[in-house]
């Protein structure tokens, strides 16, 4: 008497089917929402792959880098937001080898990225974190670094030194060339 005769089998299956359809609808909407969310999250990676972060930056006139000496230089990172503050100011070491050839080293130790310091008296770069040391040409001298200092490509135009920079170099992605020494332009 309580069960409406004849409608029971179709009624239950219809409700079950509606539940499944509803779940399916939510699943489809979920996937549609997930695609932009994942792309949003991966945007730093996508930017690096499509456009890249590197560009040519001036370190200033050559007169700042006397022959035979190694000097600290700074530049403003090319990809920058207004709220980055001083974190977008990056330092690097410029070595004027002989007045003709230069080497521009990243400030980051090749071990774990700490800032290396130049000691002109002993002609060594030393790292304060885990004790890595490098010779004046950037090659590894001692300590835990697996390689020499990261080197930026450079070129000289109108008496100014330019480097190809914009991304923090790390052991896994040494943005600059891996070999260490290269002059693209004399």
């Amino acid at each position, binding site marked *: 008497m309580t069960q409406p005769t004849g409608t029971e089998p179709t009624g239950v299956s219809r409700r079950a089917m509606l539940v499944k359809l509803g779940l399916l609808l939510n699943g489809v909407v979920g996937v549609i929402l997930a695609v932009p969310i994942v792309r949003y*999250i*991966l945007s*730093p*990676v996508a*930017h*690096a792959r499509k456009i890249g*972060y590197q560009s040519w930056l001036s370190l200033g006139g050559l007169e700042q880098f006397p022959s035979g000496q190694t000097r*600290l230089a*700074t530049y403003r*990172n090319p*990809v*920058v*937001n*207004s*709220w*980055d*503050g*001083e*974190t*977008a*100011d*990056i*330092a690097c070491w410029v070595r004027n080898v002989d007045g003709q050839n230069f080497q521009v080293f990243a*400030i*980051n130790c090749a*071990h*774990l*990225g*700490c*800032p*290396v*310091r130049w*000691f002109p*008296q*002993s*002609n*060594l770069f*030393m*790292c*304060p*974190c*885990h*004790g890595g*040391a490098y*010779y004046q040409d950037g090659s590894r*001298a*001692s*300590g*835990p*670094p*697996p390689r020499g200092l990261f080197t930026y490509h450079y070129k000289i135009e109108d008496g100014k030194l330019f480097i190809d920079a*914009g*991304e*923090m170099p*790390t*052991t*896994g*992605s040494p943005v600059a060339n891996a070999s260490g020494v290269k002059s693209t332009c004399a």
Partner: protein
Amino acid sequence: MRVIQKVGNWLDQRLQLGAAIRDTAGHPVPRETASWFYVFGSAALTCFMLQIVTGILLALIYVPSAGEAWSSLQVLNHGISLGWFIRGLHGWGSNFMVAIVLIHMAQVFLFGAYKFPRELTWMIGVILLLMTLGMAFTGQVLRFDQDAYWGLGIGASIASRVPVVGPWAVNLMLGGPIIAGATLSRFFAVHVFLIPGLLIACVGVHLLMVLKLGVNEWPMPGRIVRRATYLKEYHELAHTKGVPFVPYAVWKDIFFSGFILLSIAVCAIYLGPFGPSGQPDPTIIQTAPRPDFFFLWLYAVLSFLPPSAETPLLMIGPAIGIVVLLLLPFFAGEGEKSWKRRPIAVLTILLVAVMLSSLTQLGLHTPWSPIMDAWSSVPIPAEYLQGRTALERRGALVFQAKQCHNCHSLDDMGGKRGPALDRVALRLTQDQLIRQVIQGGGNMPAYGKNLSPAETTALVAFLETLHPAGQPPAGNAAREVVLGASAKASSSTQP
């Protein structure tokens, strides 16, 4: 009184929570668990609640912007009434929370609490530990100073070593090409929304399981856990012989939590907040970055791993550790619970404790780091120069000027990167000293290109004086035999 009762009844009629709260508070626990050993879980929860409250208070002022965060911390420390105290509570609360979570973990491990049927409670506990450490690391980043900046650099350098996807992992972690505004924003989101949300959910499940499965009974040597009989035995201990949690056990939890809160407050008042250290300006390179206390052991490990093994060990080591912790209840889900019959468990805890504390101790002293200003600020002790020849004193000058002192100590002052040189003349002959200085080796850079022959001669002459008064310096016996007395005479005047 009657009014309060009336209001209470009115509320309970609608909320329907009274019975549930009474059941929870009065749930039976085995009598022996009303113990001071069982207070660490509730103390960790207390710390977590303190962190939520003080975190919200800090968020009222803090600006999660790379350009402003550091100055907003200065305002918190100096410009806002008692802002320094809230920062102190949050910073010390974080240290206490990590410490108590570790103690809690050691206690439940030694008491066999991870065995049947509490395997999942343990596994969620492992995840809670990882999230607590995640909060500690991201919290250190939000204190956006030099240590935070270069600490992020270390994190990015480790992430970059992941095979294949390393460079992408770096961009994802930093939110861009360098450590900058986007980096701080995402660490803020992780520290304030993501991990706390997950922590609250996991703490809820963890607590619910402790209630539903009952707190681990006091382990008795010889009382073996078996899946077939354990539930019945536990029911006997808790329900037949047990006591209600409130008030029999709870008073110890309350007292200990109060003591911990008081300790955190005392530390905050007398030791103050942590930092911030210097501004997060990457062009200021006169800095020696250090991680916070609970990551010092990792900092030490990173300086001792050999370069060839570093990347694989960094990738595989933590993964193995976490998997072993997670799967522990499946290797040892049954059997003896008492630490008195589990010597390997006790040894494991002792070994881990000794290892972590030794590495932390090393991390506090960083003997592997050159002391960057030793060459100009640490003098050579006067007695090392008295009665020396002009050449030897000239060598002492070379020793300072070429920064040897940054890595080598004399009279326990100076760097500890290389060996102390107070008795070096006993260990190395003149020829060996010259070779070591010029060619380096054994983790010492080669100085051949940086020293003139005259400087090398002077330096080695100075090094040869470094031996105790009564003991002669090392010499090459063969040389004296072959060359006779002339060798001895020449070796004391020239290299």
